[in-house]
C-alpha cells in the first residue's frame, strides 16, 4: 500500500499543453499513473498523446471521474488553478508551480481549512509510490518499492537521500515533497499522520530545512502520537540569518528557524537526526535492523 498517490489515482493535469506540463504528464503516464485528463482553457477537444483535454477542471471531472489534480501553470495563474481544482471537488491537488505569492497562499490555506480536500505544495516535486504511480516531476529511477516513507521540503535532497537509502537495499512506500514555500497546503504533521496509519510503512524519513517551525511541531507530534520510527535531516546549518536560500521558505528570521534549533528540538524529543544524507541512510538501516 501507499499514501496520497497509487493505483486509485485518476489524474487530471492543469496546464497539460504547456512544455513542462506535457513533458511530465507523459513521464507520469509512462510510469503507470492513470492519467485521465488534461485541462487548458480554450483547448477542449484536443488530446495530448491520447489524453483528452478539457476547458475546465469541472468538465474533466464530470467526464472522467478524476480525483487528483496536478498543477503546472505559471505562478500568476496558479492560485486560480488551485481554487478551480478545489471547486471542482478534487480530493488531492498537487501544485508543482514555484513562485506563488505568499498573500495568495494565506487566503488559499484559510479557504482549505473549511473542507476535507488536500493540497500538496506549491513549489513541490509531487509524490511517488514506487511501482504504483507518480504524480509530479521526480526522477522515477531513483526509487524502488519498499517500506520507508519519505517527506521533504526539498526535491533534489529527497532524490539524494532516497538513492543513499536505496544503495543500502532499502526501498520506499511513498515519497512526498511538501514544498519549499513558507505556506504549503500539507504540513509534515499532515503527512506523518498518513504514514502512521499506513500498515506498509515501517519507518519515515523527514527531510527539513531552515525557516519556520514545522519541524519542531512535527517533533512534538512524533513524540506524542507516532509508533512508527522517524529519522530526521535538516539542511542549512551554514545559512546566514535574513537570506532566502533558494526556497522562498528557507529563511532564518531573527533567531528563529535555524537548523541547529530544529535539530536540537527534534533530538530532545527522541528523533535521531543525521548530519548528512549518507549518515541519514545509515541511521535508517540501523533503525530497521
Amino acid at each position, binding site marked *: 500500500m501507499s499514501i496520497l498517490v497509487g493505483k486509485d489515482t485518476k489524474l487530471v493535469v492543469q496546464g497539460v499543453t504547456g512544455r513542462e506540463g506535457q513533458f511530465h504528464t507523459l513521464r507520469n503516464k509512462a510510469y503507470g499513473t492513470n492519467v485521465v485528463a488534461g485541462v487548458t482553457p480554450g483547448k477542449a477537444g484536443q488530446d495530448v498523446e491520447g489524453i483528452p483535454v478539457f476547458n475546465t477542471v469541472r468538465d474533466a471531472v464530470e467526464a472522467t471521474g478524476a480525483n487528483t489534480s496536478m498543477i503546472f501553470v505559471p505562478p500568476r495563474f496558479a492560485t486560480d488553478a488551485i481554487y478551480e481544482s478545489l471547486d471542482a471537488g478534487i480530493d488531492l491537488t498537487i501544485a508543482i508551480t514555484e513562485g506563488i505569492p505568499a498573500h495568495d497562499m494565506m487566503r488559499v490555506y*484559510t479557504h482549505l481549512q473549511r473542507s476535507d480536500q488536500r493540497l500538496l505544495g506549491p513549489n513541490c516535486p509531487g509524490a511517488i509510490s514506487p511501482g504504483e504511480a507518480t504524480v509530479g516531476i521526480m526522477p522515477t529511477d531513483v526509487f524502488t518499492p519498499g517500506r520507508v516513507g519519505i517527506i521533504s521540503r526539498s*526535491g*533534489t535532497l529527497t532524490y539524494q537521500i532516497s538513492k543513499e537509502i536505496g544503495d543500502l537495499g532499502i526501498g520506499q512506500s511513498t515519497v512526498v515533497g511538501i514544498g519549499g514555500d513558507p505556506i504549503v497546503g500539507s504540513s509534515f504533521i499532515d503527512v506523518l499522520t498518513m504514514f502512521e496509519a499506513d500498515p506498509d510503512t515501517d519507518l519515515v524519513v523527514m527531510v527539513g530545512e531552515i525557516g519556520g*517551525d514545522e519541524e519542531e511541531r512535527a517533533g512534538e507530534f512524533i513524540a506524542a502520537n507516532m509508533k512508527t520510527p522517524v529519522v530526521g535531516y535538516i539542511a542549512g546549518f*551554514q545559512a*546566514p540569518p535574513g537570506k532566502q536560500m*533558494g526556497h*522562498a521558505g528557507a529563511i532564518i528570521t531573527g533567531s528563529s528557524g535555524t537548523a541547529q534549533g530544529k535539530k536540537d528540538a527534534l533530538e530532545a524529543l527522541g528523533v535521531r537526526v543525521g548530519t548528512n544524507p549518507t549518515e541519514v541512510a545509515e541511521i535508517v538501516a540501523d533503525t530497521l535492523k
Partner: protein
Amino acid sequence: MDLFEYQGKQLFAKYGLAVPSGEVADTPEQAKAAAEAIGGTVVVKAQVQVGGRGKAGGIKLAKDPDEAYAEADNILGMDIKGHVVKRLWIEAASDIKKEYYASVTFDRSAKKPLVMLSAMGGMDIEAVAEEHPEALARLHVDPLVGFQPHHGRWLVYHAGIDEPAQKGVLDALTKAYEAFIGLEATLIEINPLIWTADDRVVALDAKVSIDNNALYRHPDLAELQESVTDDEQERMAHERGVTYVKLDGDVGIMGNGAGIVMSSLDVVALAGGKPANFLDAGGGSNAEAVATALEVLLSDPKVKSLMINIFGGITRCDEVAEGLLAALDKLGATLPIVVRLDGTAAEAGRAIIAERAPANVVVEPTMLSAAQRAVELAKEAS
C-alpha cells in the same frame, strides 16, 4: 526584499500613514539643501539595513542647514556593523510625548497576518515580548475577512494606548494593514510609532519587507530591488537570474536544487572548510545555466576552490558535464574544481570529465568525498 527606511516612509505616505516630512540626500550639499527646504531642526539618519544605527552614531540632530551639512559629511561613508552609509534621510525633528510599537507581520506558523501593538515602543520588541508579554497585544486576522475596526479597538485597549492617542493609533493600524495587503508585504513594522506633543500619531521609523514572489504585480517595487542589493556578486547573480547568496568563506559551491546546495554548504563546513556562497543553478542545469553560474562564482576573488554537486534527475549528468566543459573553455578558469555527479547518466558524465576536462577539474564519487577534496584544495591554494 527588505526596504530602506526612506523607501518605507515614502510608501507609508502613499497609504495615508503620517510620517515626518523628509528628503533623501547622498551628499552633504544635498543634506544642507534638504534641511533648508524642511526648515527648523532636522534629523540626519543613515540609511542602512541594520539595527543600532543610533548607538553607532548614524542618527544625529541638526539645528540648522550648516549643522546638517556637517553631520551628513560625518555620517556618509561611516561603517555601521559592516554596512557602509551611502545615503541619508533628512527629516523634520519630532516633539515626542510617547513612543509606541505597531506591526503587521506574515505569521508563517499561523499562516495568517499578525497585528501587534504595544505602548512600550522605541526598544527591541523581542525583549519586550520576553520581559513584559502583557504589554504586547497580539491579534491574528483572518485573511479572507480582513482587518476590521473592532480588531483595532481590541488592540488599542489591550496595549494600553493613552486615551488622547487612541484614535490616531487606530487609524495608523488600519492604514498599516492596508499597506501590508496593498504592497503584499511580509512585514510592516513601525518602531516607534509616536504620540506627538500636538497629539498627532506619526510613524518615526519604517521597516518594510516585500514578498519577492509578488513583485511581478508591483513593478514600482521591483524597481527598488537594485537599490537594496549592495553586494557585487549578488547584484550580478540577480541580473542573470541565478539564485545566489554570498557568504564569507573560500570554497565556492554550486548545485542543482536549493536543498542539495544547502546540504553541500553544511557538508563543506563539516569537512572543516568555509563555504563562499550558496548557488542553485536550478533543475534544468544546461550548458548555458552552468556557464552563467560559473561566471558568478568566479567573480568572487575570495574563492580558492569549487565544489560542483549535481544530482541528476530530469537533468542528465552527461549534459551537465558537457555544459561544464563548454563553460570552462569560455571562461578559462584555472582554480581547482571538484565535481560530483550522481543520478541520471552519472557514469557518462564522469567519463566525459575524466577524458576531456583540463587537469584542474577532478571527479569525486560521493558528496562527502567531494566536500573533503574541495576543502583540502582550498587550503593548499591559500
